[in-house]
């Protein structure tokens, strides 16, 4: 039945009809893509305007708390704040603003911002992201929590070192270092964790940006069987200008067969000579 209908259909249809059908379909696709582009652009522009509005309100509230010593409960005197805080976009803008201010301030202000992050429920919002099925949310969550020194998230972040996604694994490592310092690296002394140059540059960036102090026993990392970790230790020793550890670098230079390590020690010591 179906076969005979198909045969009839094929015989009945003219090549010009096929062409017309193809033209109509392609035309509709072109219109569809145009409309999708237009819709996307309009939505983006609307979101940008909304973000600007939210940003202004959040900045006003944050500055009131930080510099006018207003109490947390007073947030609710701001129009729409409670309602807005349920909105994910509003939360994202708020987290971004708080993190940005947190980078710029230290001491009392920094602690107050950490408190606000927690009081406004943003820390919980970030914690929920750690359980998300999409890895992008997990990375976002780790980054927010570690940036805000939310130490309560440490266990969870440490657990995410075993996540199947490499980006999450790297972000978890960076988060652990941010929350507990470079001492965390010792956990990998005997592991085969490979820290490529890109990951190392991210660790060094973290150390410089947040002025993470050097662990007292850093030179012990030079004895690790993990070559990439040894490389990172060399870079850290020279970054901290740990003069007493230079002997250990010389010893390693003589002992190691790795050309990469020799090259790095050479480079770093030459650089130090120049600066001294």
């Amino acid at each position: 039945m179906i076969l005979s209908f198909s045969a009839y259909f094929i015989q009945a249809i003219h090549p010009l009809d096929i062409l017309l059908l193809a033209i109509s379909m392609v035309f509709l696709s072109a219109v569809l893509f145009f409309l999708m582009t237009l819709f996307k652009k309009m939505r983006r522009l609307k979101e940008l305007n909304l973000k600007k509005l939210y940003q202004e309100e959040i900045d006003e509230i944050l500055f009131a708390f930080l510099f006018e010593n207003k109490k947390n409960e007073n947030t609710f005197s701001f129009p729409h704040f409670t309602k807005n805080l349920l909105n994910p976009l509003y939360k994202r803008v708020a987290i971004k603003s708080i993190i940005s201010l947190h980078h710029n301030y230290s001491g009392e202000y920094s602690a107050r911002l950490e408190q606000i992050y927690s009081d406004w429920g943003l820390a919980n919002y970030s914690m929920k992201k750690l359980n998300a099925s999409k890895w992008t949310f997990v990375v976002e969550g780790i980054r927010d929590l570690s940036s805000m020194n939310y130490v309560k998230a440490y266990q969870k972040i440490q657990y995410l070192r075993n996540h199947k996604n490499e980006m999450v694994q790297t972000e978890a490592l960076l988060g652990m270092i941010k929350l507990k310092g470079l001492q965390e690296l010792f956990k990998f002394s005997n592991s085969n964790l490979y820290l490529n140059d890109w990951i190392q540059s991210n660790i060094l960036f973290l150390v410089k940006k947040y002025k993470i102090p050097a662990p007292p026993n850093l030179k012990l990392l030079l004895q690790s069987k993990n070559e990439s970790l040894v490389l990172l230790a060399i870079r850290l020793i020279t970054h901290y200008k740990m003069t007493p550890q230079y002997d250990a670098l010389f010893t390693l230079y003589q002992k190691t067969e790795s050309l990469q390590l020799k090259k790095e020690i050479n480079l770093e010591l030459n650089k130090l000579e120049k600066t001294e």
Partner: protein
Amino acid sequence: MDMSSSLDFFILIFNYLILFFAGFVMLSYIILAIISGVSLKAYLKKNRFVNYNALLSLESAPRVSLIAPAYNEGRTIEENVRSLLAINYNNYDVIVVNDGSKDNSIPVLIKAFELVRSSIKYQPEIATKQVKDIYISSNPAFSKLVVVDKHNGGKADALNTGINISRNPYVVCIDVDCIMDKDVLLKLAKPFLEQSDKKVIATGGVVRIANSCIIKSGKLIEVKAPGNFLARIQVIEYLRAFILGRMAWSKLDGLLIISGAFGMFDREIAIKSGGYDTTTVGEDMELIVRMRRFMIDRKKEYVVQYIPDPLCWTEAPENYKILGKQRSRWMRGTIETLWTHRKMMFNPKYKTLGLLSYPYWLFAEYYAPIIEFTGILITIILVAMGIISWKFFLLFLLLVYIFAVMFSMIALYTEEATFKRYETIRDLKKLSIAAIIEPIVFHPFTVYAALKGNWEKISGNKGWGEMTRTGFDKKT
């Protein structure tokens, strides 16, 4: 077989060939667009969290030389070099190679950057035209700058000179008049840090059209759809080529070209492969094909990376005369490269390159304009003779036209879904109108220019043709 049945047979074969070719091109475009879309989505997802500034913390980040060949660029060279010196990266130098300019390029550079003759000896590893002088700056603020003054030998020769002068393991070859994103080197260098099992021999990026964009002090401030109609159409063309084409070829490991305006190479491999070929006008495509062949022939594991971010902005021709010269030159370059590396055609040794990329370039880039022109010509004759119906012919043309518009719309959608560089509804309107008109006005001209390129190749024309630029400074 009598005359009439022979003609019928010819017409039948012709019709099927044209239909097959049109179907093949359209289908390949769609497949490439799908691969590009998926790859772009994955790339952006991953790179959303990348902090490129982290690379600045690594003292041993790859050391790079930016090589900028210049010929008669005196009017804009100072601003262009300042822009190159302001790039966000630790370990780099800028080598400007003045390729025997007839204008005041060298005096302008000497004055602007306090240049003095250097004692650096020129020791070429790739043969080039004679170097007259090498300059460095007496001002420590410009310590990254080296200026080489040499006899004219063409762009490829100037780039080879720069590769010879460089002492860094990586070279980035650019057009001096391009506007670079300030993070360009950070983005290009990242793949070199991440790869450990395969050697990254080259990284290429996306080139975009800068006409009508707001540029201040050599930096791109605001992206706008060009006011000039011809340049606006080229925006669509570049979006299609870079977003929907090269991204897919990169994913398939079949990228045959890294734009001459902007590409990063492993210096050692570039030298061992013989450097840029000075006898072709398609030196950018030729070098990357030769480097890939070099690695495959020696059974070495390698990778060519592609960065889809818009990192390099160039000025597009705004009149048909210059555009025609550019396009016929591109066609000659394609012919020369395909001919030089004809051994790769359907050669399984070269895997995707030999089995897919090379044949695709041959049919869809080289033969396409010839087939298109011949096909339309014969069809018109057949229609005039009453053998093929006008109705069918016109409807078929309409299908091809609407397909071209649809493909441009896909490119515009992909741009909006990814990099979002055109901000306003007005820009979208301008670009959409350009997409509708492009197949009628611009495409026939590119076919003409490609045919001219074929003719020039046959008749032995080897010139580059002048590319007169308005210069960005006028537009700030």
